[in-house]
């Protein structure tokens, strides 16, 4: 026998108060947003240089003239990102796993992986793009790519893999040693333990920081412009120079933001979901 639940007057009163509180929160948020936005806009419009700035940075005509080329260029950024991202993921995990090998046979490999992450995390991305983009073709080796897009992408991969490897490594280290002990005591080898027990748990934990690195990789694809290919930033540069107007830069920036913001929101969503799951676990 279960007794049906009839809401008590106390609970009804409580819910009424909660609803009232909710309404007050929403209106407070709305009002403060309007005030802040209004102040910012007013500050901009009232500043003495605003007419010049509007003409130079927010010119409709310049936008219309340059946008098709910038969009075409932006497609190249997207391609660079889409090619680099999966490669960075695979190589980063590989480097992290190599750093976790314990057998003495693998010492040189392990040392190399440590050296790689140390060195490449230290080199500014722009510098690395110059070094790879202009240095590698200068070697004049047979079969080595000379396309600046390919070289720039390789430089991005080299730089980001070193960061992503460390993210994976921290994830692997965060899995409690008792999980490894449990797996090994069932007879699983080191490799099987990593494959079935440690890495799946590690990857789940590092998804938010990984997405953060990818938002960064996405915008850094613009740095490949240094080598000359006609991607979004380069197109914007050309149009800006033609028209003595900076609007194309703003247009390019908006395109990058349009791609990064959804990724950032998705990251937050995943992080919030992970937090809820941890909170719900007993």
């Amino acid at each position, binding site marked *: 026998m279960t007794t049906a639940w009839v809401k008590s007057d106390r609970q009804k009163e409580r819910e009424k108060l909660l609803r009232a509180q909710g309404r007050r929160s929403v209106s407070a948020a709305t009002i403060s947003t309007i005030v802040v936005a209004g102040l910012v806009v007013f500050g901009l419009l009232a500043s003495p240089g605003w007419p010049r700035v509007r003409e130079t940075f927010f010119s409709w005509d310049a936008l219309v003239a340059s946008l098709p080329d910038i969009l075409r260029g932006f497609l190249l950024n997207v391609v660079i990102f889409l090619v680099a991202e999966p490669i960075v993921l695979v190589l980063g995990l590989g480097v992290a796993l190599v750093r976790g090998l314990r057998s003495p046979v693998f010492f040189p490999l392990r040392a190399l992986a440590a050296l790689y992450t140390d060195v490449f995390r230290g080199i500014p991305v722009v510098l690395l793009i110059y070094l790879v983009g202009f240095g590698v073709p200068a070697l004049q080796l047979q079969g080595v790519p000379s396309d600046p897009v390919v070289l720039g992408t390789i430089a991005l991969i080299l730089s980001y893999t070193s960061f992503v490897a460390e993210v994976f490594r921290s994830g692997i280290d965060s899995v409690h040693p008792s999980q490894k002990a449990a797996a*090994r005591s069932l007879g699983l080898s080191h490799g099987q333990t990593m494959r079935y027990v440690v890495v799946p748990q590690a990857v789940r934990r590092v998804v938010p920081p990984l997405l953060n690195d990818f938002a960064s990789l996405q915008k850094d694809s613009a740095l490949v412009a240094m080598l000359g290919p006609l991607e979004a930033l380069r197109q914007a540069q050309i149009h800006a120079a033609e028209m003595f107007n900076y609007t194309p830069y703003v247009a390019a920036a908006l395109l990058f933001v349009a791609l990064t913001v959804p990724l950032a929101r998705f990251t937050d969503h995943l992080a919030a979901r992970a937090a809820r799951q941890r909170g719900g676990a007993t």
Partner: protein
Amino acid sequence: MTLLTVDGVWKRYGDHDVLKGVDLTVDSHEVVCLIGASGSGKSTLLRCVNLLETVDDGAILLDGADITDVRADPDDVRKRIGIVFQAYNLFPHMTVLDNITLAPRKVHGVGRAQAEEQARELLTRFGLESKARDYPDRLSGGQQQRVAIIRAIATQPRLLLLDEVTSALDPTLVNEVLGVIRELKESGMTMILATHEMGFARDIADTVCFLADGVLLERGHPDQIFGSPQHPRTREFLSRT
């Protein structure tokens, strides 16, 4: 028939000696309970037998072969020994069924269908058949520990080690886990238990060993150890529990 021989095993962490020359023999189908205060070396001894710790001196023989030989393959040894931990250590990202079938499939090469059938048989035997598709964090502590025991015996080990398997459970859940261990004894499983459940040790053990400060001070039939302990420290320990 002797299944396991522990011969003068010594284990040191830093400059603290945890095991100081422990000798122990375990026959097939025998149930040995290790009792003693926390820090007496019970868990360390079990971890040494399972090669989760390397011994600093002495030897451990399983089926007459030296498993502490540096040339021995630890994975091969662990295939024949199961261990259950105090904190369950189930894999949180796998269902109960996947936890149990992982080692049979990946280590012993059993096909998925057969491994799952065997796992379901074990789950049914221990009253957990409805939990096969659940993740460990949906289960109570007692259920998790029973799954951990099933996971350890799913590979049909020669020897099962149980390391204070009821210490993390509240009293009402202890009994369901002890029931599983009792049933394993009836099926002839050779077991070494480190335990703080004195009543249970007296009830289930063929042999009880009392450890203090890394030394096996006294061993004997449970009636003798609990009824008329010989060593003063055994008497002192039992009078406090």
